[in-house]
């Protein structure tokens, strides 16, 4: 499975990782709706760390589509809210 971490590039990770990532993703959704900034930060960091640790960076020469897209590590809670409710990370 190919995962893109926005602003950092793509990683190839074992398919088995998806359950773990989904669990973290679900927690992130809860943190966003609860407005829990610190917990949101922690789990977003954890999500990105897990991918980097268990995956390998894709060489720059490879041009492929990703199955999963992870927001940038410095995304704020406010930006995350926009991704859920509004125009996305950045307005056109």
């Amino acid at each position: 499975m190919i995962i893109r971490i926005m602003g950092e590039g793509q990683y190839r990770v074992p398919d088995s990782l998806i359950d773990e990532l989904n669990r973290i993703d679900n927690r992130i959704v809860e943190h966003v709706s609860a407005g829990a900034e610190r917990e949101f930060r922690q789990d977003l960091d954890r999500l990105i760390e897990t991918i980097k640790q268990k995956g390998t960076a894709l060489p720059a020469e490879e041009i492929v589509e990703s199955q999963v897209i992870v927001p940038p590590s410095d995304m704020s809670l406010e930006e995350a809210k926009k991704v859920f409710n509004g125009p996305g990370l950045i307005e056109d």
Partner: protein
Amino acid sequence: MGLLDRMGTVVKAKMNKIINKVEDPRETLDYSYEKQLELLQNVRRGLAEVTTSKKRLELQKAKLMQSMDKLGAQAGDAVKAGRDDLARVALERKVALGAQVESLELQIQDLQKEQDKLAATEQRLTTKIEVFRTKKETIKAQYSAAEAQVKVTESVTGISEEMADVGMAVQRAEEKTEGMKARSAALDELLEQGSLEDVTGSGDDIDRELNRMKASSGVEDELVRLKREAGR
């Protein structure tokens, strides 16, 4: 729906805007290639912006530290002259400047990270564009318009995702430097006026009172130290 799914949707929407479907798929390749080169220019401009902003903040930091040294020396002179009141004023200003230096350091670190990230992005994109160019020429040489369709979709989709990502990264970097520019212009103005009170303008009454107490205890400590040095 999770954040990852939503993020995927956001990027897909960007990609669809980037991919310009024209009748001859081989033209799609050329169009995409042109857009990639434009994007690379944007990344380079963004990188230059971030570097300039960082240098500006470093310069301000150096100026502030010079002023702090000067205020420290003035406080020492004031104590020697028996003017504790003057020394206190100088030390109070020195503490205020110290807080500014700390905040500048954080911003400089932030910009350094941004600079590293954009530099890596520039390299990655340069490589991908080169790979794409080679692929594009091969496809154009070997396939008829109809045959090229599948190949084109493959390569264009992959590179468009990259472009959507890079495009957003550059935009975010620009927003960050814009925010810092405004703050650093405000700081320049205050430096010229020689007043640096409440530059951050944030914090509630309690915060302010706590900061004031912290600052004044630092001032008193240093005043005592200076007096001791002056043998008083």
